């Protein structure tokens, strides 16, 4: 197994009127080829910003302040802007949340995909269209030739998301960042796409970072899981480990509040309180005010513990079973 993506100490800040806010705080993880890593967190936890930071697509007032993003061993952050750009789409690609918005409404699907082909490969326009058609066939779109002629508004949401995935796959990138790609879709379509993605990963060996707030999706799809809270990864490990025996109180709370993982008829447990604002985080462990296990020591920086296969950032982790 080769490591497709390795993130080390990634930190991204946003300048606001009240000073810099750290949206991604010292985040490290790695994903191996052919594996799917679920990056899980509530809204505002910094999971999407992490995705955009990996792509190098953070805009003002945001800035990546520290860390490394190694795609197939090359640190994206060491590269000049143009070299970085040429890695995007070719070595690392991205799929977005809302398929209604990711395609340019006034250009034909085929033109948009052909543009994406030709930016990295010097081929003729018709060859690029052929490549686009093949890509659509790979993601299971019937009558791909006709779809290429269509404008985005003529396709359904699920179809558009398949187009976006096909576009991301055009150059067989080592890594795809998928930013909640099924959140905006119907549950039935969601299922189809998840199955399709699983198959593609197995066939192509692409590594996927699947950014989502939906633990249910991740537990059925991902090989590995990283849980983010207030800009930090608080727990990570193989999906089976983390779901079966979560060690961080936050992860525990998340899993307990998933309806599907429960006996019907019982009252769902909830995590008290709400997501903290990044502008004024409590000192030490940011989960402290909501945590049932919190003590005085939690006002200091929590330590890493556990193994590579299952690590946790907590003063009082739950016992591994």
């Amino acid at each position, binding site marked *: 197994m080769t490591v497709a993506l390795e993130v080390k100490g990634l930190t991204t800040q*946003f300048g606001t009127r009240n000073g810099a806010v750290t*949206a991604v705080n010292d985040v490290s993880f790695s994903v191996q080829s052919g594996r799917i890593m679920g990056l899980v967190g509530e*809204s505002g936890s910094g999971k999407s*910003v992490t995705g955009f930071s990996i792509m190098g697509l953070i805009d003002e007032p*945001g800035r990546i302040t520290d860390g490394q993003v190694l795609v197939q061993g090359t640190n994206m952050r060491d590269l000049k802007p143009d070299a970085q750009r040429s890695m995007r789409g070719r070595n690392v690609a991205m799929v977005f949340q809302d398929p209604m918005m990711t395609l340019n409404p006034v250009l034909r699907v085929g033109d948009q995909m052909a543009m994406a082909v030709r930016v990295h490969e010097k081929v003729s326009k018709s060859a690029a269209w052929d490549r686009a058609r093949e890509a659509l066939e790979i993601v299971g779109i019937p009558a791909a030739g006709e779809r290429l002629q269509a404008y985005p508004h003529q396709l359904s949401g699920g179809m558009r998301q398949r187009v976006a995935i096909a576009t991301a796959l055009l150059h067989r990138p080592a890594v795809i960042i998928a930013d909640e790609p099924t959140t905006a879709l119907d549950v039935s379509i969601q299922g189809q796409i998840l199955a399709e993605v699983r198959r593609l990963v197995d066939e192509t060996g692409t590594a996927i970072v699947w950014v989502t707030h939906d633990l249910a999706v991740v537990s059925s799809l991902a090989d590995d899981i990283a849980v983010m809270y207030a800009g930090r990864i608080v727990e990570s490990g193989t999906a089976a480990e983390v779901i079966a025996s979560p060690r961080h109180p936050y992860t525990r*709370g*998340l899993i307990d509040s998933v*309806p599907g993982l429960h006996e019907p008829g019982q009252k769902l447990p*909830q995590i008290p309180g709400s997501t903290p*604002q990044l502008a004024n985080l409590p000192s030490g462990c940011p989960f402290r005010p909501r945590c049932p296990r919190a003590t005085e020591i939690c006002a200091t920086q929590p330590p890493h513990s556990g193994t590579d296969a299952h690590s946790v950032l907590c003063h009082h982790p739950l016992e591994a079973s």
Partner: protein
Amino acid sequence: MPEVTMENTMVVPSAPPEETRAERLRNFWSDYCQSWVAVLALAVIAVLLFVSFGASLVSPQDPYDMAALDWLDAFLRPGTEGSGGYVHILGTDNAGRDMLSAIFYGLRTSLMIGLSAGALALLVGISVGLTAAYFGGRVEGLLMRIVDLQLSMPAILLALVLVAMLGQGISQIILALVVAQYAYFARTTHGAAKVERGKDYIEAARSTPLPTRRVLFRHLLPNVLPPLIVVATVQVASAIALEATLSFLGVGLPLTEPSLGSLISNGFKYIHSDRYWLSIYPGLALMVTVVAINLVGDQVRTVLDPRNSR
């Protein structure tokens, strides 16, 4: 699954949810002050208002008083002392009028016309826009058709024809400007009210036995006000510019009631004879006025735009 909403791309620390009116005003002001140009523009407007509405106090001469004019003082260069025993800082015109005084009085006329035309157009526009948005159906179709038709015609052309029909004079000009400009307010009101109307709180207010008038003025109006403020500033500036243009073209105010436009028009006759001060100075006053008002409007737009709030 935890009770979370989807997030898109970045984390924005949200403002505290509840703000009092005073706090909102203070926030508005501090946002406004982000641009020093806009603050300067506001100060300039204050000065202009002072010298124009206090024209009789600050100007050395009353340009309306024909008896005070001396033909011997005609075409004095800026900085020359005239028969009145004081220095004409900006020179005198062909009738011996002190240009500085004429500009102060002219500014007063221009501002008065601009402000009253803007205010009246605002009233008419709000009424038309709200009526259309509230009643919908045929009424809306007809009113907005007329408004759209008018909007596709340039205001200057409409004003020109109206003034030609109505004749010269301050009230005629104001009327022409109102007819030419109300459509902008009507369109803005209608657009904003249409959006608000679709929202639940208006439905809620309509389903209670509140009188129509109350729903319109207590519920709809406050919500369509912000975009209207922006349009109003821009329209006052453009009313002033329009009036000046009409006067320049010779269909506005006569020189006995000088507005900035008529002063410039008068000065234009002499630009080939090196008597630049007759047209340059009133023109500068006009430009500064119009640009300052537009800059203020621009900044208000920026501050009120919800997309710009961080």
